[in-house]
């Protein structure tokens, strides 16, 4: 009696789990799809050798900021290994453009405008002043040389000016810790920035000097924020700013402030990142890959169930039921913890369908052995499960072990395959062994479940002769 109670208990538990899983699993459309299934961009960025983890973490934060600006729904940015950053942007419209924004290694510098010297009307003129004809040649010159463009926007009429700067900037973006937008007392947008300790000292020094000049001459001194040779802003310096925290106020719109903050953040990217692997997938391509995979999965599931029912009859039906329970539980787990499904991930899931019924095949074969040796269905059921379990367990363990190794070694979509394979096989041991057994034991009193032919144990019929007459096992 207590055994029946235990099995009933197990099934009630399974029913509850099934309900919870179904709640998380459906509708399937809420599954996070990897970019290989909905289109998008995946890129792996590599930092130069010897980059500290700290810098990598900062780079990740910065990339996150940039990506957020792109308005991607479910971006995934994470470090990979010691010196790589993996960026996944599913569902973006323009992967090429996004890649440019993310991968751009901007050079942010702070120049005193008084160091700029003579303005030129074109880039060529500025280059000519240094006796070179291209930027490449300029870079080759000894000492610091840079052409800076300043598009001054004065009352609608904009005037562009180019400068040949030969004095190295005292502050660079690397010394900047972070920047954000905020609002001042009058509720006007402003930009706050924070410097690293070295940067703070330098910044105090520079602002102190500029503020002193202002006090003496009565003329505002400007500190230009230059990103990639482009003057983004040139705030006036009114007083010395020490302590490493500065704010830029002025006639900004909120968008201007946000842009400037972004420029500052961009510039703070501590290391130069190079793309070592990138993958862009068109939306249509992803969609059709998804449909094909789902189709393959559904047909695979159907084929397995047909095979099981034809070969094992009622037992096969129970195994098919367990397989469906398995599928729902698995989807529930995947959607519940928000796993991003990739194409290899779905492939892994389809494979586990076949592996899940493997356990049933082994158990049912054992049951046939037991019935053949003269046992009743009930006794054969429990003996079959008990004896098959060791082989089932060992088989599944080897697959789980390789899945773990693969998960460790793989990158990108293949990790998804390893995950579904490992989790799926572990879960299948639960459904194919425990759930099937409980169902069978509970139903064992019912008449169809005592009929060997219906059960699919009919092979035993001719075998139930005394062994020494038939001579067969």
């Amino acid at each position, binding site marked *: 009696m207590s055994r029946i109670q235990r099995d009933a208990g197990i099934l009630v538990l399974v029913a509850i789990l099934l309900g919870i899983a179904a709640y998380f699993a459906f509708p399937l459309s809420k599954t996070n799809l990897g970019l290989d299934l909905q289109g998008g961009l995946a890129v792996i960025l*590599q930092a130069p050798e010897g980059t500290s983890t700290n810098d990598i973490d900062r780079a990740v934060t910065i990339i996150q900021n940039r990506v957020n600006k792109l308005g991607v729904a479910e971006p995934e940015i994470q470090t990979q290994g010691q010196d790589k950053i993996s960026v996944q942007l599913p569902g973006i419209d323009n992967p*090429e453009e996004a890649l440019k924004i993310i991968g751009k290694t901007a050079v942010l510098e702070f120049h005193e405008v008084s160091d700029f010297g003579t303005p030129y009307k074109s880039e060529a003129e500025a280059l000519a002043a240094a006796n070179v004809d291209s930027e490449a040649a300029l870079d080759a010159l000894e000492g610091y040389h840079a052409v800076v463009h300043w598009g001054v926007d004065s009352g609608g009429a904009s005037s562009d000016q180019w400068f040949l700067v030969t004095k190295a900037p005292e502050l660079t973006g690397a010394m900047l810790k972070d920047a954000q937008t905020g609002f001042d007392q009058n509720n006007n947008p402003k930009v706050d920035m924070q410097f690293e300790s070295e940067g703070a000292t330098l910044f105090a020094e520079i602002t102190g000097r500029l503020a002193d000049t202002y006090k003496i001459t009565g003329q505002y001194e400007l500190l230009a924020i230059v990103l990639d040779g482009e003057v983004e802003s040139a705030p006036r310096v009114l007083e010395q700013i020490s302590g490493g925290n500065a704010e830029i106020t002025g006639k900004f719109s909120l968008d201007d402030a946000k842009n400037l903050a972004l420029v500052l953040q961009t510039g703070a990217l501590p290391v130069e990142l*190079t*793309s*070592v*692997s*990138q*993958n*862009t997938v*068109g*939306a*249509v*391509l992803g969609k*059709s*890959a998804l449909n094909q*995979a789902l*189709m*393959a*999965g559904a*047909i*695979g599931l159907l*084929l*397995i169930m047909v*095979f099981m029912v034809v*070969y094992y009859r009622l037992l096969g039906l129970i195994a098919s039921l367990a397989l469906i329970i398995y599928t729902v539980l698995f989807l529930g787990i995947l959607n519940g913890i928000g796993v991003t499904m990739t*194409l*290899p991930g779905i*492939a892994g899931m*389809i*494979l586990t369908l*076949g*592996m899940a*019924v*493997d356990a049933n095949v*082994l158990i049912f*074969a054992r049951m046939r*052995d037991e019935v053949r040796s003269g*046992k009743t269905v009930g006794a054969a059921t429990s003996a079959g499960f008990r004896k098959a379990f*060791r*082989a089932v367990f060992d*088989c599944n363990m*080897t*697959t789980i*072990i*390789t899945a773990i*190794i693969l998960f460790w*070694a*793989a*990158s990108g979509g*293949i990790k998804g*395959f*390893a995950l579904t*394979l490992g989790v799926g096989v572990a879960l299948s041991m639960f459904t194919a062994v425990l759930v099937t057994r409980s169902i069978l034991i509970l139903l064992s009193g019912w008449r169809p479940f005592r009929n060997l032919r219906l059960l699919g144990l009919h*092979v035993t019929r001719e075998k139930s002769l005394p*062994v*020494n007459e*038939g*001579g*067969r*096992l």
Partner: protein
Amino acid sequence: MRVIPFMRYKWWFLLSLSAVTVFAIVFVFLVRLDLGIDFRGGVRMQIGLEQPATVDEVRSLVTGLGVQDPVVQSVVGASGANSFMITAEEMTADQQQQVESELNSRFTVKADSKSVEEVGASFGKETTNRAFLAVAIAVIAIIGYLTFRFEFKFAIPAIVALIHDVGLTLGIYAASNRLVTSATIAAILTILGYSVHDTIIVFDRMRENTHFMKKETYGDMADLSIAQTMVRSINTTVCLLLPLVAILVFGGPTLKDFAFALTIGVVTGTYSSFFVATPLAVVWKEREPRYRKRVVAAGSGGEIVLGSSVLGSDGENAAGKGAFGKTAGTPKPGAGQAVQPRVSRKTTKGKTSSKRPAAKGAKRTSR
């Protein structure tokens, strides 16, 4: 049940299958696996066209834009019939754009049907190294696990069978001219984990049968174990082949290659369990003094116990399911049954310790 004396021919199996494996591996080295950009670095571009184009047209167009040695394949499936996969070791962003715009002007590129994958050479090298490392670790882990659960003399034959499976998979993969991608490596690792299943099933039965069979030679015991487990091994394989076939037929191009590799590995994994792993384990185990004695006692072939009945009848065609359902030939009295009563006796009184029925060796003589 018909017991086929496979183990009489163990050396024949071992030698011929090693020859096949060596041939496959040499073939792989000669033909050179077509390593995809995942390992060597490069660019892979897939693009769907509205109008029909031939591979040659696309290739000449791409070459015309200065891309060195592009590999152009026609891909059916993902986005209609006119999809092409262009792979090259180097294709700059500019060249990619030119390819797209040229294709667009001649064949009209389908919207949102382009995918580009770029892998740096150093990253590819890292992937390769990691793939080798992962395979090595998996092999060691499987040896470790099997040694822990069975014994070392079972673990090594299982791995040798896996070498056969993977060797053949790679050989056929290379022969069919498919590109090796990271998905292929995933398939190889899965084969390592899965192909050992059937070996475990036989070994599990051998582990069990050793307790009942105190007189029979190790080879006869192995033959019985194979006979007892072959159908179920084939069935588990069929259960995995069904979804694989579904992927092969309905899946997209990437999944197809993956399923192809797995299919070979799974099929080879089934027969190698019987014809590589088991014979090797038998050869090794029969060197142990206690089993050697039995071989000597049985007159080198184990004629006394299991074998004779089988040898006498049509053992040739008895493999597979048919042999189990029907009684082909007339089993000779005295042989064959000797083992069975004890096996069934044990299973009936399943709960007793495994030592006890084994100790009742006398039962056999009484029958």
